[in-house]
């Protein structure tokens, strides 16, 4: 059983909701990313989503676009992201880590080579924003051979037929997109998310995480009433951006995350 499955089993037995923070690798630099991962793990992250920066992030709002730009200015690529995972594992971090990417950087790296490298460094799963189930079979098979998870996205606009296809390809957990739109913090959660999670439950026994727009502890609590975990992305990335000018990015983000983490 891989780390993701184990973590969700544990959360279930403890009757707790999961907290899944997202950061972009290399934002503001790789050393900070490593420390941020360790900090997030310590602060109660159930799973950590590590973004691979991409030049054309069509699914992202301005906050994550800006983070990707900062990372790309440091010329961060897939190799650096994998290296960072390796380093935090060496430091003893055992929190599940999934890589969050657009398809092209992974395709150029090589799907087989990427899966092998993930296994070697200790990454647990991958989520590809622009890989829909119709295009996912090859990669799913390659990952499954190595017991690596392919986390699939489901959207409120997805038909039941599509939800079934998505769940058939998914492993680890299913990521339910809370609303139509790009990533970015919102003040209000849409009620579409709860409905989507309910529909997904009829197609899968996998855990379900909700993301897009979650930025406060209250929202996390709300989401965890019906879902298994809540993903917080842009809000944390924004906090990193705000802290860049400050002396201690890590300390600032620590305070922010401690207020978020439900546990």
């Amino acid at each position, binding site marked *: 059983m891989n780390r993701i499955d184990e973590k969700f089993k544990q959360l279930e037995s403890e009757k707790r909701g999961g907290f899944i923070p997202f950061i972009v690798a290399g934002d503001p630099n790789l050393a900070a990313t490593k420390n941020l991962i360790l900090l997030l793990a310590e602060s109660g992250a159930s799973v950590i989503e590590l973004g691979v920066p991409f030049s054309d992030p069509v699914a992202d709002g301005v906050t994550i676009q800006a983070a990707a730009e900062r990372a790309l200015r440091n010329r961060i690529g897939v190799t650096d992201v994998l290296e960072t995972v390796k380093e935090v594992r060496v430091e003893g971090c055992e929190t599940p880590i999934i890589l969050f990417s657009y398809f092209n950087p992974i395709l150029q790296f090589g799907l087989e080579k990427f899966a092998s490298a993930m296994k070697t460094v200790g990454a647990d799963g991958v989520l590809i924003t622009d890989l829909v189930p119709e295009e996912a079979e090859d990669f799913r098979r390659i990952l499954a051979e190595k017991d690596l998870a392919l986390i699939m996205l489901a959207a409120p606009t997805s038909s039941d037929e599509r939800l079934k296809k998505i769940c058939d390809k998914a492993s680890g957990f299913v990521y339910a997109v809370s609303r*139509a739109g790009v990533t970015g913090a919102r003040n209000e959660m849409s009620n579409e998310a709860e409905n989507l999670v309910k529909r997904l439950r009829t197609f899968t026994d996998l855990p379900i995480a909700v993301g897009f727009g979650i930025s406060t502890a209250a929202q996390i609590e709300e989401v965890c009433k019906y879902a298994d975990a809540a993903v917080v992305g842009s809000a944390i990335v924004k906090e990193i951006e705000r802290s860049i000018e400050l002396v201690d990015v890590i300390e600032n983000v620590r305070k922010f995350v401690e207020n978020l983490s439900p546990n």
Partner: protein
Amino acid sequence: MDFQPNALGYWGEFGGRFVPETLMSPIEELTGAYFAVRDDADFQTEFLNLLQDFSGRPTPLFYAKRLSEKLGGAKIYLKREDLSHTGSHKINNAVGQILLARRMGKKRIIAETGAGQHGVATATVCALFGLECVVYMGDEDMRRQALNVFRMRLLGAEVRGVGAGAKTLKDAINEALRDWVTNVDSTYYLLGSALGPHPYPLMVRDFQSVIGREARRQILEKENRLPDVLVACVGGGSNSIGLFHPFLVDEIVRMIGVEAGGKGNNLGEHAARFNKAGGGRIGVLQGTKSYLLQNDDGQIALTHSISAGLDYASVGPEHAFLQSIGRVEYAMATDDEALAAFQTLSETEGIIPALESSHGIAHAVKIAPEMSPDEIMIVNLSGRGDKDVNQVQEMIDGTPSS
């Protein structure tokens, strides 16, 4: 070979759908709606009538006598898309898609534009039918195609500048996709080239194929035989595929797509996706698998071309397929060659071509002299150059321009 994509939108290994899941339902809805009208006689009649009465089709096939004589080789014909309403072939696709959007009951239309020709075409058909229109355009393109920005605004469209990346066509498409994913229910994305996720490359090609069908009929009327060579510039690939497609079955017809060679062969200096030495490799961008200009990490490269309409890092997937099977050849024309061709055509034929189309002319200038006077070449004159006159003046007068 029938040159149709499979059910997932693939020509060979090229095409497909690589989009956020949120867009898959609207894309499936669009696909269903498009296939319903594709063989619908009423729709096709409505489309052709509007092209005739509103856009002025058929466009002439013009024998460029002085240019042919000057080059001393092939007999050159120009397919005069520059005479279309709004000044380029882009109106063909805009008319087709707006009729579809209306059938789908969509009230809000969004589009991206590079040179501004597709934006103008979209703003025009939105005005024609009283629909809300938002056009995304890179800041750099807004600068170099200022006239078209003003035209779109006159036509009642909202033009939204995009400041990301190189501030050109690719960045405008990103922003249009973000708008679509946010406003899926109300909005129709009227994509302007043979690009993007299935069914766009197929649909845009179908609507643009009116160019090749007319040209085929016209050349048979005038010369009583098929042409030897077709030449067209390739940005996203819509005017070229529109000319080429009806001739694909005619094996004796040679076809050449001309990409932007820019100002050099290094990554970032051109927009020639099939130029492997220049960084073109298979990859996935903006919904489709095709040739891309990218670095070793799979990050999309900046591109450069004198012409905004060719300044794009990817190319339509059907072109990638036609290149892979050797049916169509791809060549390059540099900024300087295109600029020279712009002037040559103006002087010899009294036709000021768009800078995009000038790349096709530039290639004709290169190869026509090697051909014999009884060989026939058709060059797609995809648009007129009015929009480019200011930019060209700056360049000829030596005023610095990026």
